[in-house]
């Protein structure tokens, strides 16, 4: 018997049950059981770490958040997939990059999340092509009815890092350099943080510093904001005519860049990996290969609205019909997907960065000082983990 764990509620559970059923029908004698785990990322992570530390062979297949792969790989908790010779050409490169550790692939992307810039087609002439244009369009769209130029996730949590990552990339900066060194305290970092801080109280309400995804979606959905930074899940909800005041009056674009920078969309989403202590790794792999095949991904998009990481599907008119999004616009965003640092100590680095970003944004520290302190502490974390370069 094989056990798979991950999101198994609502439409996600529905599509998983259906697909697992087909897998069992195609593999007589194989039993697959779905194990529900908490939807809250921190809780699921905690649970996984406890299981894997105890070297339990179940669940055999794990649904991982994109920032966990390196951690689990370095700990020896999940199997490298090379020996199964997965064919990977079809996947968006960033989605694979996030799942590699020390040159080896440890998990296969299952569905993809990216940060997108939602904009009001009735208030903005076109999708901004530069940060300058965004800075002009946002205040120009503000009125008595639409008080906010832009809303984003500014609470002290993982979401803030993804918001920052996009602006940082837009200025050409990065959190960790290619060689693994901390690179966040750069001129680009300071400019990015200054830009976000400058928006607060002017085009973004101070409340954004307490907002997660849903609060920002509500603000945009109620027609209170010109721009919204959010994930793909917001698209169908914002288009529900009974609940949303902006249905049919918005579009999505890639977060624009400054000269010399590159447009970046923070990469999120789920991957599938094999528990290193699974007693049926071959079978586990077959399940992963089945679930990540184009047909299953298309069905997942149709039922749960989740974006497939296979590029070929983005040429498929059936996907456009399933998602209701302009495929080419979204594909452009997916091509610019930017992984968060791929390192086993990501969550600790992120926590440190969250704190210092939040300090700077709430006026407790100057951006430069905050980033310097963050960088120093992040270096200490890498050093303590014996991962410093």
């Amino acid at each position, binding site marked *: 018997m094989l056990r798979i764990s991950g999101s198994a509620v609502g439409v996600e559970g529905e599509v998983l049950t259906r697909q697992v059923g087909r897998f069992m029908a195609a593999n007589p004698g194989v039993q697959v059981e779905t194990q529900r785990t908490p939807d809250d990322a921190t809780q699921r992570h905690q649970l996984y770490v406890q299981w894997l530390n105890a070297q339990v062979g179940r669940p055999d297949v794990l649904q991982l958040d994109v920032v966990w792969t390196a951690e689990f790989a370095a700990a020896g908790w999940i199997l490298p997939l090379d020996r199964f010779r997965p064919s990977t050409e079809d996947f968006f490169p960033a989605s694979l990059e996030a799942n590699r550790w020390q040159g080896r692939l440890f998990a296969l992307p299952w569905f993809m999340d990216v940060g997108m810039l939602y904009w009001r087609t009735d208030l903005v002439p076109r999708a901004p092509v530069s940060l300058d244009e965004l800075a002009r369009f946002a205040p120009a769209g503000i009125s008595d009815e639409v008080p906010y130029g832009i809303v984003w996730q500014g609470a002290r949590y993982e979401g803030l890092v993804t918001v920052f990552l996009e602006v940082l990339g837009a200025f050409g900066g990065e959190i960790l350099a290619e060689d693994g060194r901390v690179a966040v305290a750069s001129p680009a970092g300071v400019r990015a943080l200054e830009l976000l801080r400058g928006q607060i109280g002017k085009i973004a309400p*101070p409340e954004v510093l307490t907002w997660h995804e849903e609060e920002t979606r509500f603000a945009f959905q109620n027609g209170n904001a010109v721009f919204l930074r959010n994930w793909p899940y917001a698209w169908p909800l914002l288009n529900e005519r009974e609940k949303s005041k902006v249905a049919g009056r918005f579009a999505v674009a890639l977060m624009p860049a400054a000269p010399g920078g590159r447009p970046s969309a923070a990469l999120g989403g789920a991957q599938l990996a094999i528990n290193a202590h699974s007693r049926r790794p071959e079978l586990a792999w077959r399940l992963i290969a089945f679930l990540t095949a184009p047909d299953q991904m298309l069905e997942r998009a149709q039922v749960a609205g989740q974006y497939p990481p296979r590029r070929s599907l983005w040429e498929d008119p059936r996907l456009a019909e399933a998602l209701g999004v302009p495929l080419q616009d979204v594909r452009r965003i997916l091509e610019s997907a930017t992984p968060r640092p791929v390192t086993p100590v990501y969550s600790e680095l992120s926590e440190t960065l969250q704190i210092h970003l939040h300090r700077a944004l*709430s006026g407790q520290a100057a951006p430069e000082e905050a980033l310097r302190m963050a960088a120093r502490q992040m270096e200490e974390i890498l050093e303590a983990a014996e991962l410093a370069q």
Partner: protein
Amino acid sequence: MTGRMSDRRLAWAFVAPALAVLALIAVFPLGWAIWESLHRHDLRMPWLGRPFVGLENYLDIAADARFWSALGHTVFFTAASVALEIGLGLVLALAMDRTFRGRGAVRAALLIPWALPTVVAALLWRFLFEPQAGIWFVRPAAAWVPVILADVWKTTPFVALLLLAGLQGIQRDLYESAAMDGAGAWMQFRRVTLPLLRPAILVALIFRTLDAFRVFDLIYVLTGGGPGTATEPVALYAFNTLFQNLRFGYGAALSVVVFLITFGLALIYIRLLRSQS
């Protein structure tokens, strides 16, 4: 002689189960936490093993700026909330000490905030402040207002009832003789009520200080320790270290430090109480 020995043995036999339970529920976890705190143990980095590091975690704490600021927040929160709770609790107790119609109902109503689970009370105050989240939860000084207000709202009734019990233990004729000696209301309060209420005040102080020092759920729900870490108390820092970062050794050391401080406070109070009686 042998008879007395067996008496003694019998006595030990009688208390043994209680001691065993105590050891199991108090000493064992504490001992385990202390043992854990002497190791470098990071659940997410199994490649580092679980080496014994002696007092290294404690030395790291001594040099940890986030710990010291968390300790500062804890002390500030404790001082501010407990002072307000004792002051307000005393006023409420004095008011309830008088006989008036519906006194029973007032006393019962007073208990409602105290009866609410802290998480529920914290959520309630979070919702109350939510419309102005941009003011209350993004400025370090302002963020303390909902936190302290919620704590005072929730625990003042407890203090008031404790003090009320103390007040009712004061014999009425003491006031009569004080009045005969020409003492006004203020003089009576200062010379009769306050001195005789001191044991009750001290008990309230002990409970409240120790509780406030370990504050966790209230702040976890209300501000999450933010903005930045501007309202993060030590217990929340320890929680984040243990359960978010899964750094068991360091987290255990932080918890042991919280324990040592509250234990020290408890000892001081107990001594004060003893010198009272």
